[in-house]
């Protein structure tokens, strides 16, 4: 699920950037640093929308770097258990398939794939229904339900299922 929230971060800036456009430089640096990262607590930071405030800089001892506390608004994405997402299949395996929903990787094990879909290896490994109506292969879109979320410090990984109603393809 997406959230729009205010986060804070301490940015260190090299003295070479000190000058009239200090704040812009700081903002650029922030965006570069933060967008695309993931924290276990908030999820993936998708985009920084606005820099709210930049506090007073503190000169670090020994080096000339200055630390600025920066508050910024951003869009974060965090998957939850029970959530239903659309994802794009990246890898099909005998044990299941891997899909991506934006920055998060989801694994659907074959145990959670409906029984009437069977794995077919070959050039393009895929899962197909017995009548061939539904085929799940690389780059197909599937709707899946998250049943487990594993949150590491900087990594989020999910397990999904397509065994319920309205899940899978179409």
């Amino acid at each position, binding site marked *: 699920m997406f959230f729009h929230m205010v986060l804070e971060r301490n940015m260190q800036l090299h003295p070479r950037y000190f000058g009239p456009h200090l704040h812009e430089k700081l903002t650029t640096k922030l965006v570069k640093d933060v967008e695309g990262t993931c924290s276990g607590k908030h999820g993936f930071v998708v985009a920084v929308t606005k820099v709210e405030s930049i506090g007073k800089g503190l000169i670090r001892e020994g080096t000339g770097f200055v630390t600025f506390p920066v508050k910024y608004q951003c869009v974060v994405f965090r998957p939850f258990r029970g959530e239903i997402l659309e994802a794009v299949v990246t890898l099909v395996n*005998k*044990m*299941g398939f891997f899909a991506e929903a934006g920055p998060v990787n989801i*694994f659907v*094990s074959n145990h959670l794939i409906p*029984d009437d879909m069977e794995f077919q290896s070959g050039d393009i490994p895929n899962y197909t229904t017995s009548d061939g109506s539904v085929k799940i292969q690389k780059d197909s879109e599937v709707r899946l339900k998250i049943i487990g979320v594993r949150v590491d410090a900087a990594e989020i990984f999910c*397990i999904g299922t397509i065994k319920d109603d309205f899940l899978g393809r179409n």
Partner: protein
Amino acid sequence: MTEPFNRLVKLAARAFYDDFTTKGDNQPKTGRSDNRGMAVVVLDALTRRQWVREEDLAKSLKLHTKQLRRTLRFFEEEKLVTRDHRKETAKGAKIFSAAIAAAADGQQVGKEGDEKTKIHTHSYCCLDYAQIYDVVRYRLHRMKKKLKDELDNRNTIQEYICPNCNRRYSAFDAMQLVSMEDEYFHCESCNGELVAESDKLAAEEMGDGDDNSRRRRREKLKDMLQRMEEQLKPLTLQLARVKDLPAPEFGTLQAWEASVNAAGRGGNNNGSATDASKSAQGQGYGGTPMPYIGETKVEVTIFGADVKDEGAETEAATASLKVLPPWMIKQGMNLTKEQRGELRPDAKVDGSEAYRDQSDEKKQEQKQEDVKSLEEEYLTAYYEAYARMLEASKTAQGEAEVSQQSTSSYLNGVSDTNSARQVGMKVKREDDDDGGIEWEEDVATGILNELSIVNDPNAQPDGSGDEDDDIDWEEG
């Protein structure tokens, strides 16, 4: 006190362990050697005992020791039973047997004779009630949880097992496990192919459309859950009953042995005295300082009046140098129960009962000659003191006379005791006299308490020996 717990153990045994076999299911001959249910028998037997040696248990249950050990090992792993392995000489094992006998009213006779100094490892086991209560509850909880989880579809996170190194992986780890070469997951350490762990409880039905099979699975699970609740109802009820009761606690083997030994000697507080293994010492029964061995230790223990002298046997068991009390000496070694039963002169108030029980034990081992003289000396003093007390209390003058007479007739050549008796005279003892004074008073009260008990048996002495004929026991 332990009854509800025993019932709990029995119910749990029958509920969960009635199909326990010691065979590994490899051998198909169930006809001849089907010993299913042995586990239940063992558990039941353990409810009737406290700490018990495994060999003894095997003998009484008529089971092979090895089989019993396997069963007990299984129970130890299930956390129902605690085991203790001790290196003991045969003599040490006797101490234990005596303790058992003490606790079980002489059901077991300690091993006699064998005085080898080889050290064997003896194993003991005991039910651990507190743990059993927890274990049973946990088991029930896990059973219900498993069913409920499946019902809710919670256990859908796949687990993978490596057949080589038995390492378990979750589906979450799938990312790291995916291999480039082929289409299976490989173990991180040994690169073996992982096997998925499937849903055990509700086997899926193929063929039907998803909806039906899923519904059927749910029905099946619900049905299983319901049946489980119903069949385990007596057990759950018993658990509820037992919930607020304190679990019977037997402590470690050492502690239990010690406490039972002390109890046997008439420890003051219902045998909870934690005297160490002074079994070899004449520690004396509750209140009756009987010098059983050369050390004339006068145990000035207060007359507990609740002399549980079952443990008297411990003394006999442990101290082969036990000495017969004076009145017994004369009658020779072969003392029967009967003899000892009656021979409860009022002087030996509390000890008499002890002796009655002890009669079963090896009196024969006692070497009287060694300590006879010491004994007589002591007993002289004792009788004097006793008689004095009686006089002082003036409640049982008759006994005093009787005791006087008995004293004179019993003791060899100690006829001067009569004359020496005076009120207030210090008792001749080998211990400090200070303790003696208190002792006398206490003994007096104790004796008074016990008199009623003692009187009756004393009233009819049957052919206990020559000396008895000389004495006219008079009712006080």
